[in-house]
């Protein structure tokens, strides 16, 4: 078993795992009763995308996308903080979610 062969298996399987993570988070994003769940899933998607980006840049062995990775991190953090800041300004309970909490 030559080492580069094992590496590519591990990396590709990691990529598949991350893609699965993204799909699962999407379920929560669409189903999510409260807005906060949706923001959480948005953050989750952000992070898994960063993971995917890292793996692709390793597979392509190009160092161009490292800045993009940093910007993705910034956007992930910034998006979440912006959404929570918005909710901090406007969120009132009565327009709360329709689903019951214990599903």
């Amino acid at each position, binding site marked *: 078993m030559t080492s580069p062969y094992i590496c590519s298996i591990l990396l590709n399987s990691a990529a598949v795992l991350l893609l699965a993570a993204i799909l699962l988070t999407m379920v929560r994003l669409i189903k999510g009763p409260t807005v906060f769940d949706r923001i959480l899933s948005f953050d989750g998607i952000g992070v898994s995308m960063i993971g995917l980006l890292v793996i692709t840049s390793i597979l392509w062995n190009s160092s161009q996308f490292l*800045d993009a990775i940093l910007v993705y991190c*910034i956007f992930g953090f*910034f998006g979440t903080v912006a959404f929570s800041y918005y909710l901090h300004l406007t969120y009132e309970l009565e327009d709360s979610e329709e689903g019951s909490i214990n599903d």
Partner: protein
Amino acid sequence: MIDTRVKSPILAFFIRYIFFFITIFAVYIFLKGHNAPGGGFIAGIIFAISLVILNMALSADEMKQILHYDPLQIATTGLFIAYGTAIAPVFFGYPFMLHKMIHLHVPLLGNLHVGTPVLLDFGVFLVVVGVTTKMTFTFSHSS
């Protein structure tokens, strides 16, 4: 001005370091713009984002104290710099907007290829920062 800050000590503590980090990143992106992905526009937005995040944690007057110029003034100075670099070559008899590259050898950093495009980029940088922050601040402070 109603206080719109998110009052949390952790955020208050961390915000300065995050702002500092993102600003350095913006400067890095700005300087390497000419030869690698980056440039005035992108750096401008990154710096604007860091200011916005800072704005969330600090109240209006603290922000004014940090950014003691009105953002629109920043934008107009950026505009002024950009137009200046465009018109300057005309005074030296060169055609309009001719960029001049200066190759200097700095003892510490090796030889540097600095040029007037960087100035134009800096103008763009200031304009973008000024415009974005002006709009975000008017929205968030005026409620």
